[in-house]
Structure formats: structure tokens, C-alpha cells
């Protein structure tokens, strides 16, 4: 706030500047005669500045040429690869629950009818299995060798419809079911 205006003729500052000038004048050492040639030699040995990252990479690789260094570099590379794999796996695992939710709906739908039906529609799943056993006995008397055939066919018929039935009947009976889980989810 209360800044001092610039004072170009501050005698103290002039004295400081004079001291620095005196110091600089006293320190006027000359470089050794061969310094410039040494520097030129060092510059000649330096890689071409225009070559960019490729030359730098080559220089790094050249530095790693001895066997021990090569082994160390290989170990570093292995560790880097393993680390990358581990990170990838962790990421996959982290994504797994999210991915699992998409298939879970069918799995979740199937329990939901079984749970929600338990009180009222418990009877609806029980009738659906009960007809299938009833059909098998009825089919078996008609053709005794048939049992193996009908049972798979029944199983097939039973299994294929079951999802559709459970989906359809579930939803059908599950009109109430849907309202149930909906309320349950809420």
C-alpha cells in the first residue's frame, strides 16, 4: 500500500552497484588457453541436436550395452510388463461388477419371480412343475420306452418354455410380480 517511489539516486544503491562493479573488475580471470578447444571437442562428441529423440534413444541403448546393464534393463522391462498386466487385470476386475449387472437382470429376474411368487405366486411356480410331472406319467403309460425320449423332450419343452413361461407367466402372474419387485427395489 505504502510503496516507496523509485529513487534513482539512492546513494546506498549506487554504492552497492559500485561494489559489484569493483568486484567484477577484480575478478577478471582469463580462461586457460585450451579451454575453447576442449569445449569444441566436447561439442564435436555431442550428438546432433537436430536428431531428436531417436538419437537420444540410441544413446541410451548404447549406454546399456554391457551384459550386466542389459540384464538390468531386461529386468526393468519385465517388471514394467508385469506391472502393466497387473494394472490391466485390476482395471478389468474393477469393471467386472459393472459388466455383471448386464447379465444379472435375467438372473435377477428369475429369482424375483421365485421370491415374489413365494407368498402369493408360490402356487404359480408349483403348478408349472406339477403339470410336467403329470404329463410324464401320462406319457409313460402310453409308450413305455418313450420315457427317456419324452423326458428330455419334456425337459426341453419344459426348459424352453420355463424361461418363457416364467417370463411370460411370471410377468403374467407377475403383473403383480413386477409391481412387487418394483416396490421391493424402491
Amino acid at each position: 500500500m505504502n510503496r516507496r517511489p523509485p529513487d534513482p539516486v539512492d546513494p546506498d544503491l549506487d554504492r552497492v552497484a559500485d561494489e559489484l562493479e569493483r568486484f567484477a573488475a577484480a575478478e577478471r580471470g582469463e580462461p586457460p588457453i585450451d579451454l575453447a578447444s576442449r569445449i569444441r571437442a566436447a561439442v564435436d562428441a555431442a550428438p546432433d541436436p537436430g536428431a531428436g529423440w531417436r538419437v537420444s534413444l540410441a544413446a541410451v541403448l548404447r549406454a546399456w550395452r554391457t551384459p550386466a546393464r542389459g540384464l538390468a534393463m531386461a529386468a526393468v522391462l519385465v517388471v514394467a510388463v508385469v506391472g502393466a498386466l497387473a494394472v490391466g487385470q485390476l482395471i478389468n476386475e474393477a469393471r467386472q461388477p459393472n459388466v455383471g449387472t448386464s447379465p444379472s437382470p435375467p438372473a435377477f429376474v428369475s429369482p424375483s419371480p421365485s421370491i415374489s411368487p413365494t407368498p402369493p405366486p408360490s402356487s404359480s411356480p408349483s403348478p408349472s412343475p406339477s403339470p410336467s410331472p403329470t404329463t410324464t406319467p401320462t406319457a409313460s403309460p402310453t409308450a413305455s420306452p418313450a420315457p427317456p425320449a419324452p423326458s428330455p423332450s419334456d425337459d426341453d419343452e419344459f426348459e424352453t418354455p420355463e424361461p418363457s413361461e416364467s417370463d411370460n407367466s411370471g410377468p403374467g402372474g407377475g403383473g403383480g410380480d413386477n409391481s412387487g419387485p418394483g416396490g421391493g427395489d424402491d
Partner: protein
Amino acid sequence: MWATAWHDGGVDDTALIDAVRAGDRHAFGLLVDQETAVIYRACLRILGRPHDAEDVTQEAFLIAFKSIRGFRGEGSLRGWLLRIATRQSFRRLSQRRPTADLDSVGEPFLADFGAEPTRVAVAAEERREIRAAVARLPEPYREVVALRFFGDMSLADVAAATGRPLNTVKTHLRRGLERLRPLVTIVEGDR
């Protein structure tokens, strides 16, 4: 062609600068020949030890050669080199362990002061104080003070080299000198 490219202010030939920027080692060699003494002197003033000054001078040229494409042509090549050299010198100074600075008691001073060891020691101590005080300055004051007094640059050249307005450089110099004010007391107390 490049023989006329040099003058007291350093390299000022566009063709030579372009050649240096293009990585022409011969052109850079000419730059080394011309500027080594100036760069070395600036390093010596900051570091106080000839051996360190030689090392840092070489480092500065190598850094300049590797990053020559970073030189945008604002200001002179000498100013650019001096900026690199002073920065490297202060870095080297900060890494140095505190020891008795016997190297800085150079032969010229022994000659100047004859056989009076007390005066030689006092002068060496003064120089050490000045060096340390400048090194302790915060940036950008330190850079401006170093370029102005250790690099023998004019304020206009410092402004061009640092890309700052001249008035800003003047302000930085004044604030730097204000911070160095205690030096006068110390140095005059020693006399």
C-alpha cells in the same frame, strides 16, 4: 563469410546465427572461440573457483548446443549463453559443500597485495560475501544482477535476453540492489 560476424556485443550475423541454430558444428565452434572468455569470466565471478568455472563453462556450451533450437533469436546469442551459464553456475554453487574458499585467493590478488596476507584474506572474504549475497537473491533479481554485473551486459541487452521490458529489468535490478544493501556495511566494515 562469418569473419565479420563478431563485434564487442557478440554474434550479430543472421547467417551465422542461422547456421548455429541449424546445428552447424563449425559455426558453433566459432561461437565457442568467441564467447568462451566472456562465459568463463561470468562463471568465475559466481563460483570463485577457476576449475569449477571451466567445468560450468563447458556445460553451458554443451547445453546451448543441445538446445540451440530453443534459441528464438530474441537478444544476442551471448545473452542467451550467459543466461544458461549463470543459471548453471548458481546451481553448481548451491550444490557445493561449505568449505574454506581457498581457490578464490588467486595469484593476481597475491601479486596486487604484495606480501600482506591479512589484506589478501580480507579481500577474499569480501568477494566471498558478495558472491554469497548475490547467490541468495531470489529470482528474477539474481538473474538480472548477475547478467548485469557478472556478465557485463547492459540493461538493454538483459531486457532483450530475458524477453522482459526494459523498465521491468530496471525495477528488478533496483530491488536486487536494495536487497544487497547490507553488503556495503559488511564490505566497508572490513576496510
